[in-house]
């Protein structure tokens, strides 16, 4: 899988770095001063790098816990996110990471304790207030779990902070780590979903939607709480029928009481991200419906957005309590 590892001098000798390196016996390990030497140079091409991504092991220096964007959340008043990793094993065509980063290399920050210290401080700051921490936005944490052991480290950590919600956003069907731990009431395993036919075209290298539903059912039966994330909603010629079928398939398998929250939001990008994506995927019909709006964001026409949100809301209300519904942006 990975034949090149770059490791910062400062962390190459740490237990976590060595644990990860030992999983790639045939990879060439090259020492670097700071990850930015490899990850940040401009003039790199994301799509070409995606043909053979390297793994970069680094130490996060600052910005461990960040405010979630305004309006983003699943019910709590305080929302934060943190990223121990940038870039993803999967290769979804609409993924904003391709527009955001110059490099497709997998960057893993191995100093998990520093993240945990900052999270603990943030929880303390909010005392009795409700607070949610999101992970899996700059990577798919669960997909990389066999390499990073991130969830294995963070589930026990969050078990000490019952008032803080911990959301793991994923498309992975790897459930090994959830079998090792008892279900945690404040942990949400949130699945990104879209109609199967669209996923077959767009969610490259990711498990099929039916496999994701099967895994959600397995986890729900084990007692884990499930999040449904229809983000992004994708507009296409027969989207109504496709989404109706998707919702029906999910709720045929999973009991409503196992669902913690449902959120949805339509496809949108900052302009610079979109321009890169259009260059990478000139033949994508899905990208052909997007336009620049007056806020400089590339999205569907407002009427399409409203129609999709409204339709999906009404359709989902057939199966789930609308108080569990949240908007993604």
């Amino acid at each position, binding site marked *: 899988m990975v*034949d*090149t590892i*770059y490791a910062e001098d400062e962390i190459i000798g740490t237990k976590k770095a060595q644990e990860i390196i030992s999983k790639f016996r045939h990879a*060439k390990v*090259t020492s*670097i*001063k700071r990850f930015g*030497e*490899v990850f940040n*140079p401009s*003039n*790199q*091409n994301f*799509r*070409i*790098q995606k*043909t*053979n*991504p*390297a793994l970069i092991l680094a130490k996060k220096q600052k910005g461990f816990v960040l405010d979630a964007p305004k309006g983003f959340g699943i019910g709590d008043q305080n929302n934060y996110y943190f990223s121990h990793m940038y870039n993803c094993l999967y290769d979804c065509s609409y993924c904003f990471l391709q527009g955001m980063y110059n490099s497709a*290399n997998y960057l893993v920050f191995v100093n998990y304790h520093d993240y945990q210290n900052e999270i603990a401080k943030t929880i303390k700051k909010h005392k009795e207030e409700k607070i949610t921490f999101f992970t899996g936005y700059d990577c798919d944490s669960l997909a990389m779990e066999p390499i990073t052991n991130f969830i294995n480290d963070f589930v026990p950590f969050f078990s000490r902070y019952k008032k803080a919600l911990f959301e793991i956003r994923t498309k992975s069907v790897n459930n090994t780590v959830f079998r090792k731990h008892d279900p945690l009431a404040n942990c949400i395993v949130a699945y990104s979903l879209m109609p199967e036919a669209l996923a077959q075209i767009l969610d490259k290298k990711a498990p099929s939607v039916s496999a994701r539903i099967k895994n959600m059912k397995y986890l729900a039966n084990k007692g884990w709480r499930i999040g449904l994330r229809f983000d992004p909603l994708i507009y296409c010629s027969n989207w109504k029928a496709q989404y109706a079928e998707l919702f029906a398939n999910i709720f045929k398998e999973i009991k409503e009481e196992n669902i913690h929250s449902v959120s949805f939001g339509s496809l949108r990008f900052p302009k610079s991200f979109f*321009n890169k994506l*259009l*260059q*990478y995927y*000139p*033949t*994508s*019909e899905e*990208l*052909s*419906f997007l*336009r620049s709006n007056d806020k400089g964001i590339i999205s569907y*026409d407002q009427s*399409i957005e409203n129609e999709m949100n409204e339709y999906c809301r009404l359709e989902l209300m057939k199966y789930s309590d609308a108080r569990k519904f949240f908007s993604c942006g």
Partner: protein
Amino acid sequence: MIEKNFEGVSVRWVIALKGEAEEIIKNYAMKRVATTPFPVYKNKDLDMWLILSGIGQLNAVAATSYLYVKSDASYNTIWINFGIVGSRNFKVGDLIQIDKITSIDFQDNYYPSPSAFKNNNIERCNLITVNKPEKLFENDGAYDMEGYGFFSFAKKIAPYELVSVLKIISDAPGTDLSKIDKHRVEILVSKKIQFIEKVLENLLDLQKILFLQLRDPKYFDEICLQKKFTFSQKVTLRKYLTQWQARFPLRNPLEEIGQRMTASQILKKFSDNLLR
């Protein structure tokens, strides 16, 4: 071998000395097209050029920039620095592909992209660029006199993934440097030419990906010839035509354009059509 009919092929070799370049020149049928300030060679059918830079970092930078201008190299061009190096870690005659480049004069290090190493089974090694021939080989890696200078410039004119440094081990600790003559170097290179071709083929595959990303959408040139578009209108037109091709592959956008339409009206027409 290289697909001659693929329009995106564009390759530039930067090599210090004739002895190092001879087999490459022969293998890719290049002919001399200039003598000063640097000897330059070119294949008559392909957009493939080679320059003899002479020894040292300054020469490498000067030759690379000269060839960039002289050959009108596009952004989507493969740049390869090839030559002989000394090392204590490899056997004489080994071909190595460079994955880290350092210089005794500069702080920054460079890391050629792993995309270029995929599936070629060629040994990888770090390169230390020095200012005079190395005899002690105190550190692991390969020692040369051009790689750092070459890469520092080439990475500005081409994507990282298309810039590669490829070397053959010619000397190790204790080698009598006076015995490394042109003939001996040519033999070393000729024995590895098939592997060098393989590296180039891999780079050409990457170049194809980029070529498809960078080319203008169908009908872009024709429409720009018909009406006067400003720079920013051209950017929008390029975007709309890309989306048009994806959405209406069988509809010719030229047929949507009325004779008296202005550039803005054309863009509006495309935009309205693409809304749903």
